């Protein structure tokens, strides 16, 4: 476990009193949108507006400075023009507040003048022990405490909700992506704990959040979107990540893959090494799982959040539709998972328990007229055989013979065996609803075999990271 204190970061997510500096009475302004977030009933802490122009904003009292507020303030959200931020920080320091999120832009991202301003703010913050997220960011969303500094109206940018089963937290360098992901994951119904946009990372950076999220009990999987690291920050992220990955999965989407190798290299090695290749190696070495895009990230993260890591690469596919079975096993094979046929012994036992017209192999096709009982028989025998490390279950609900009790059967065997299960269920409205129910019971469900295979791959990959040499790798790949 990382040992550096994460207390100074916790207040960003659990502040019980928040001041919005630059709170505004004008509609569609950033300063008003943020106040709006905090006056929703879900946020149960205290809210103060700060702006010398007003006596009140949206019905809450507005103060000329922080020092005019009598009570303690835990967190300040700064949404004022960049040039006056140093003055604002003097006020924050005088009030003795230890955490601030600077939403405003106009700092180092704009050039040397902005950079000077940023340095000035950082100097004040350092001197007074104030931790700072931003500037030039949308800040944080915490789905439990309802701290929400995203200045985007909810009808445009939905906020995700936490799941009772397992949750994902995401750190994004880009504010626009953080907002889009908020909106998208809300639509997907993915359980989210925290979304953090870091902006210019003038103080709080990837490492701070990694250490914090590693210890956060509401975060089961940590996701990052990054475009690269500041000087030597790639190395510190690597050092922290390798301590975290054995007990909590980390997923990364990194852009800038095409970044050129250093042109000025005078060695052969230097000319071959681009920063992105080195980053890829660092992820591999530290057990960080790199995924190609956000869709893959969410598919993988959902599986990793809800299911235990696989202890080996042997997957059994069970399906009530032949086509779905073949497509899914094709996808599993392409991802280097083993799809061994049942042993002679298991084969015999399955034949005894299934109608003769079921196809026993891998996949096992329990055929379209099945109810939950054939799945039950297959799970029981296959789990007892010890021949498989993971189950991918095809659940096509267009046939009326398969009742919703199938979800109970799947969830029960998953819990009893402690083995990872992934469900694939293609279809429309009824299927989608059934998938939601399946996920409430703790088993991740996907709309296509390819997505389910990707989820299975993530569970195997993380198993290899977590269990190392003890991971039962049966497939010797001939692929690089």
């Amino acid at each position, binding site marked *: 476990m990382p040992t550096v204190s994460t207390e100074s970061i916790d207040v960003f997510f659990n502040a019980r009193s928040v001041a919005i500096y630059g709170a505004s009475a004008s509609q569609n302004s950033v300063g008003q949108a943020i106040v709006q977030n905090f006056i929703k009933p879900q946020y149960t802490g205290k809210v103060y507006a700060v702006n010398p122009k007003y006596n009140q904003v949206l019905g809450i009292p507005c103060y000329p400075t922080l020092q005019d507020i009598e009570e303690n303030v835990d967190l300040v959200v700064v949404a004022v023009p960049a040039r006056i931020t140093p003055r604002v920080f003097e006020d924050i320091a005088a009030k003795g507040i230890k955490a601030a999120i600077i939403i405003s832009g106009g700092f180092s991202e704009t050039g040397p003048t902005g950079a000077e301003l940023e340095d000035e703010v950082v100097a004040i913050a350092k001197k007074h022990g104030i931790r700072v997220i931003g500037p030039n960011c949308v800040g944080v969303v915490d789905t439990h405490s309802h701290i929400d500094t995203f200045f985007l109206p909810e009808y445009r940018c939905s906020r995700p909700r936490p799941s009772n089963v397992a949750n994902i937290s995401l750190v994004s360098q880009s504010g626009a992506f953080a907002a889009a992901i908020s909106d998208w994951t809300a639509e997907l119904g993915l359980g989210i704990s925290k979304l953090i946009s870091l902006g210019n990372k003038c103080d709080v950076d990837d490492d701070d959040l990694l250490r914090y999220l590693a210890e956060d009990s509401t975060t089961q999987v940590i996701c990052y979107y990054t475009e690269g*690291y500041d000087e030597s920050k790639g190395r510190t992220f690597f050092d922290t990540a390798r301590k975290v990955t054995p007990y909590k999965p980390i997923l990364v989407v990194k852009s800038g893959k095409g970044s050129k190798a250093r042109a000025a290299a005078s060695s052969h090695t230097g000319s071959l*090494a681009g920063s992105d290749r*080195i980053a890829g190696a660092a992820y591999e070495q530290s057990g960080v799982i790199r995924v190609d895009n956000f869709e893959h990230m969410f598919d993988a993260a959902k599986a990793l959040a809800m299911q235990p890591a696989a202890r080996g690469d042997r997957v059994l596919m069970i399906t009530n539709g032949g086509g779905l079975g073949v497509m899914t096993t094709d996808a599993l094979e392409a991802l280097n998972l083993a799809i061994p046929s049942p042993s002679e012994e298991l084969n015999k036992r399955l034949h005894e328990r299934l109608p003769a017209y079921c196809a026993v192999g891998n996949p096992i096709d329990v055929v379209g007229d099945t109810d939950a009982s054939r799945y039950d028989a297959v799970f029981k025998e296959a789990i007892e055989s010890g021949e498989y490390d993971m189950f991918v279950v095809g659940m096509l609900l267009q046939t009326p013979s398969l009742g919703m009790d199938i979800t109970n059967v799947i969830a029960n065997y998953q819990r009893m065996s402690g083995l990872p299960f992934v469900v694939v269920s293609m279809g429309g409205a009824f299927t989608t609803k059934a998938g939601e129910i399946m996920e409430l019971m703790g088993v991740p469900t996907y709309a296509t075999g390819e997505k389910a295979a990707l989820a299975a791959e993530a569970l195997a990959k993380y198993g290899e990271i977590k269990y190392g040499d003890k991971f039962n790798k049966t497939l010797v790949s001939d692929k690089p």
Partner: protein
Amino acid sequence: MKEAKKIFKTALAEGRTFVLEHEAKNIMRAYGIPIPPYSTATTADDAVAKAKSIGFPVVLKILSKDILHKSDAGGVKINLKSESEVRKAFNEIIENAKSYGREKGIDVDLSRGVFVSSFANMGTEIIVGVTRDPQFGHALMVGLGGIFVEVLKDVSFRLIPFTESDAREMLKELKAYKILEGIRGEAPRDVDALVKIMLSVSKMVEENQEITELDCNPTFVYKVGEGALVVDARILIDSPNKKA
């Protein structure tokens, strides 16, 4: 390692950001990296004597603070099988260096003479290298030489330091890994010896952070049990006006 620090100091004092071949090999030898027998010689007679004691065939290479790319300056002669070949090669190298200097308009320093080394038997050609990335720091690269590196860019990386199992994984990541395992009836290569070199280079760089880039190219890997040799080595270091 004191040896390395002394060499880097000398190099910087001479305004070099690279170390000379014998210096690079002295450092590597101190870290237990296998290298063909070598020496240095400042005269033709000296070169012949050194070649005789090392044993033919030998390689001669120019040693000068003013020449980084030795081949470009006509400063490399390989597979020299006799005294007369060595003598001739020595004189040619010195002449070539002088005319290289005239072309570049510099007075090439020739006081160090040449590097004399045993001409290693051909093995499976490997490149082991190090780069220093601004975001991640030092990383080691490995790949099979020739077209695998030049055309296919078939190389893998790990940050330094890394473990033995990382090193083995790096090799397995290579598309050309099968060649090391032995294909078409060829005996498998001495992967253990290669892994040992990778780990030694890692240790060397870890203890000498001023190294910015390094190539062991080629490194020859022989049949299982017959080891591996770093045949050509290049080490680049921070310029003195940069912080280490």
